């Protein structure tokens, strides 16, 4: 029986609204700044088989593979054995997870005793133990990065709220009050999603609801395929490089082969370098998310609901043992950096056949800043995520100072930091002039933050990229400007590499400067008025304009 078209529209909207509400409430009831201010979390509703049907549009990276993170749980603990109060948990990078900090929770939704779907949330947890607070850049295996939750099933009544799982986690992490608070916010958001799905069941019946879920997947698939068909068939190649693995100075190659055939796309990362001994390895689920997100962003209009159906036409392959599909126990904490190069390689491959849909390379890195301090009262951990400039396009300049495409974190307001952290103070947060590559349209600007360190025994840990290899301009546009990190100590200027841990002293000034995006088209073709505005506003200097 075909579902009534209007019922379909109503239920689809209801599901999407419910997922959005889950996301809002997760953020609003969370405790750590990385979730409540930076919004490093996501939420989705899954059908009873674990297919994502609707998602809160928060972080593309976390959303792409939620279904893949779910499946190992359901294989070990079949869905027909679930009872009220059960939940699945998974953060295992080698069984559908990403990096350990992103913990996925799935809560089944029952209506009149029938399993109809799952509420799912993922949040980046501030600290999950491991070799250093918040981030251990020196980890040589995954075990040094924190506690692993293999795909498992627990129950709220038995295991949480003071139960054994909660106690186990609490004992193994450094800031338990914030972290357990964030877990509770995840459970609550799952509950909200469940409640909304039950309301829809009450109005339409479970059969109609399940049918509507199926149709929503088919609908996204149809729209995705329609978009893919517009591209000429062919095989396209692209490559990009990471600066290094943080241990040697050797660039790391990422290679993508994109095949478009009718309404299907195959992305194959054959030719990518082997996995490395440091934390830039990218688990397969993250690689899939990177490839999918790029294809989706380039080919389709932003309003196609992204769900399991929209993934059906796209296959992503990566050789086992490579940087983009590492073997256990590779460390993976900084997987975003390699994921971005996987994203860039696909973008470059698509550029010649879709020049008006792609953008030039941007800073396209996740720069993590961790400032931690151990005091008599325990650990204090501050963590934030910095983006930079976007690449320009045939339509406009790249966006200035914004989180990179696979993520979507907000900044932590200066006033939120000042309220809670007494061992540093941000004294400057500004755009970096001249950091965008010139072009008919220029790349977006990077930005900088200056942290004045107010106490001794503060440790800085970071990972970033594009410190040495600039994002490349497109169709004649100039490259973007690289990022840098410096410590100013008295008269001394200490240049730090992109992936490092470094002890700070009271009085130090830490300057984190993120990179700009690359330009698009010949700089000579730039409109005079745009150049003048950039000079007047101080976005570019006279010297830069002259060139």
């Amino acid at each position, binding site marked *: 029986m075909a579902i009534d078209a209007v019922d379909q529209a109503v239920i689809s909207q209801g599901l999407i609204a419910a997922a959005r509400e889950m996301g809002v409430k997760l953020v609003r009831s*969370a405790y750590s700044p990385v979730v409540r201010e930076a919004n490093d979390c996501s939420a989705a509703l899954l059908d009873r088989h674990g297919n994502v049907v609707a998602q809160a549009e928060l972080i593309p990276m976390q959303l792409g593979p939620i279904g893949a993170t779910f499946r190992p749980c359901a294989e070990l603990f079949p869905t027909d054995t679930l009872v009220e109060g059960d939940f699945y948990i998974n953060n295992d990078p080698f069984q559908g997870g990403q990096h350990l900090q992103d913990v996925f929770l799935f809560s089944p939704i029952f209506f009149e005793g029938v399993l109809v779907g799952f509420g799912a949330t993922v949040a980046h947890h501030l600290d999950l133990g491991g070799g250093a607070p918040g981030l251990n850049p020196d980890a040589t295996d995954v075990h040094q990065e924190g506690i692993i939750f293999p795909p498992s099933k627990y129950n709220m009544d038995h295991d949480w709220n003071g139960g054994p799982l909660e106690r186990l986690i609490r004992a193994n992490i450094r800031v338990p009050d914030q972290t357990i*608070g964030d877990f509770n916010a995840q459970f*609550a958001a799952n509950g909200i999603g469940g409640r909304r799905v039950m309301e829809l069941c009450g109005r339409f019946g479970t059969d109609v609801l399940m049918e509507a879920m199926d149709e929503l997947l088919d609908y996204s698939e149809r729209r995705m395929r329609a978009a893919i068909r517009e591209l000429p068939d062919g095989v396209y190649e692209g490559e990009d490089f990471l600066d290094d693995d943080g241990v040697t100075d050797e660039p790391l190659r990422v290679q993508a082969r994109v095949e478009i055939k009718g309404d299907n796309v195959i992305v194959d990362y054959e030719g990518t370098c082997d996995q490395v001994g440091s934390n830039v390895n990218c688990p397969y689920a993250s690689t899939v998310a990177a490839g999918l997100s790029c294809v989706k962003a380039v080919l389709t209009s932003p309003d196609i609901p992204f769900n399991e159906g929209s993934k059906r036409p796209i296959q992503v392959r990566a050789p086992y043992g490579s940087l983009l599909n590492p073997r256990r126990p590779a460390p993976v904490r900084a997987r975003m950096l390699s994921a971005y190069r996987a994203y860039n390689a696909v973008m470059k491959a698509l550029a010649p056949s879709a020049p008006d849909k792609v953008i030039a390379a941007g800073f396209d890195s996740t720069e993590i800043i961790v400032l931690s301090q151990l005091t008599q009262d325990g650990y204090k951990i501050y963590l934030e995520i910095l983006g930079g400039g976007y690449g320009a396009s045939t339509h*406009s300049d790249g966006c200035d100072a914004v*989180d990179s495409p696979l993520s979507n974190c907000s900044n932590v307001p*200066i006033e939120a930091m000042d309220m809670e952290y007494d061992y540093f103070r941000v004294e400057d947060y500004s*755009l970096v002039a001249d950091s965008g590559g010139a072009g008919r349209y220029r790349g977006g600007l990077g930005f900088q933050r200056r942290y004045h360190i107010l106490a001794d025994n503060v440790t800085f840990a970071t990972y970033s990229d594009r410190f040495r290899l600039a994002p490349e301009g497109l169709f004649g546009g100039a490259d973007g400007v690289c990022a840098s990190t410096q410590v100013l100590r008295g008269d001394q200027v200490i240049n730090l590499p992109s992936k490092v841990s470094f002890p700070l002293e009271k009085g130090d000034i830490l300057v984190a400067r993120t990179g700009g995006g690359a330009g698009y088209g010949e700089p000579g073709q730039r409109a005079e008025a745009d150049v003048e505005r950039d000079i007047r506003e101080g976005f570019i200097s006279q010297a830069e304009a002259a060139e």
Partner: protein
Amino acid sequence: MRVGIEVGGTFTDLVAIEDGRVKVAKVPSVPARPDEGAMASLVAGEIDLRSVADLVHGSTVATNAILERKGAPVALLTTRGFRDVLFLQRHNRTQIYDLFYRKPEPVLARRDILEIDERMSGQGEVVEALDKAVTGAKIAEFLGAGQYQSVAICLINAYAEPKHERQLAALVAAQFPDLTITCSADVTREFREYERTSTTTLAAYVQPVIDSYLRRFETELGEQNFAGRFSIMQSNGGRLPVAGMSRNAITSLFSGPAAGVMGAVRQAGLSGYGDLITLDMGGTSTDVCLVADGKPNLSGETEVDGLPIRTPVLDIVTVGAGGGSICWRDDGGMLRVGPESAGADPGPACYGRGGEQPAITDAHMVRGTIRAEAFLGGAMDVDGSASSRVFKELAEIFDVSLEEMADNAVRVADANIVGAMQLVSTERGRDPRDYVLVPFGGAGPLHAARVAEELGITTILVPPNAGVLSAYGLLASDFLQYETLTRRIPLGEGAAELVRTLFDDLQQRATTSFRDLGVDGELNYTYSLDMRFIGQAFEITVDIEAEALRELDADGLLALFNEAHNRVFAFGESGLHRAEIVSFRLGASAAPDVVPALNEGIGDEATRGQTRIFDQGEWQDCLLASRAAVKDQAEGMAGPVLVEDGTSTIFIPRDWVGEVDDQDNILIRNLGKD
């Protein structure tokens, strides 16, 4: 006589009431000079200003100044190191897969911002003192070189301690007495520098525009010997005497939708209903708002053109579903309605002004639920065949009949409205079935019953003259001001006493301010606290009754907070975290000395007729009745009935029955579900 004039984007509405007689006028707005439209409405309504005791005005002047970037040239003074806060914004994207993403454009340029050497800590202590001599000279040079009319001052952590802002304001005032000065501490005292800077800058940007607009307006009133009281509508649902606008212009944003809600509150209140969801459907969009016990929900945040504003506003959710919303098929084969709108020009196809895409108004023409001969009370010629033509094309694409196509489009529009209503109800932890739906605006009463069915709402109340309810709302609104304060207080020993002391101070402030503005009479006060668990960043508003405030202790506060937290997030006290108070809000209001009732216009005859409509998949015979005819039928009139009252069309479908109560409201009830 009491007169309300509401200037909207397309029409300017006037409602005049004297001795129970209601006069209504509707004239085209003059977007470039809104006061001309307002004066024209006075002429159209044949109003002699000498006899007007109370004139209340709402307009889109502030909103348009921002949308069209026609505010005053504004400079911003901020803390050293933070010149770019308005450009950096929050570092996120509202469309996560949009590669060409652009941030919302601030209303000033980077060169209009001056950094000041000073710094306050998050606890309100001076980290770097402000050197007045040096700063004064810098300000003189900077402002002297620009052509500014207005100065915004927003410093880091000034929400905790505004001392430096005050010093800067004094320095500016001393050297540039003609400039309008707006300090963040006077506009919003919430933390998060981007949102606060945005709010302060926008306030400074619109203030001179509003000032000169109101001066012109007052002059014109003076020329016509107006001697009554002139007050202005605010987005918080209350009005202020015009003098109050000289430092509060930002509160006049979105005053139109707020006035509509207040009109609905008043009119439904007369019939004894206080728990309402209002539904204002016009040409391009629908506004919904939840009202609990006669008090509309407030929200601390809103935005214009993507730019955030933090000041108390009615919690109105807007969705792009109106009479002009375009119906279309997307590339996945789904029927969509809006957000694109045909607007007023070209308008729906039936307007005959070149609109070639099917709009919701066209769908109603096809279904027979809007009749060409009764459009705007018969004042406008429309062409039903054009509606059929454009819908026929869409019907062929979907392979359904013409009227089924139109019916489906209306149902999808209804679903969009339902989504907005869930946002203000279920998402805020309220069950819509506990509320009465109050539709108004040109199209609200046409869609109300089906929307109600979707949400399980069983009672609808349609006020008289529903098409001009916003203008009436101006007259029905109280004088209203909020005083706010940010002060973090963990719940525990002594917290309740401190709460009482601080509320006493706020109450004193609000009272003095009202007396200065010449508002006499009894003041009513409301008290609310924004609270959270320590460590959370977002607060939940906890309302406290005046009586309870006197008796309250920390345990009682915690219980109130837990209940509110549990309602919104579906969980409460876990024993893990303590709760704290973050900010205080005191509302002070004074009722206008007389609130006229919005009764029937004169000359409404009891007429009945027959028509045919297509609803829910089939053609039906439908009664055509005037309001007076419904009123005559004491036992109620069973649907399907169309009631045309000149300002809007009311639809009573099958399974619903309508009756007019003694306040001239039409009550529509669902049979068998009551």
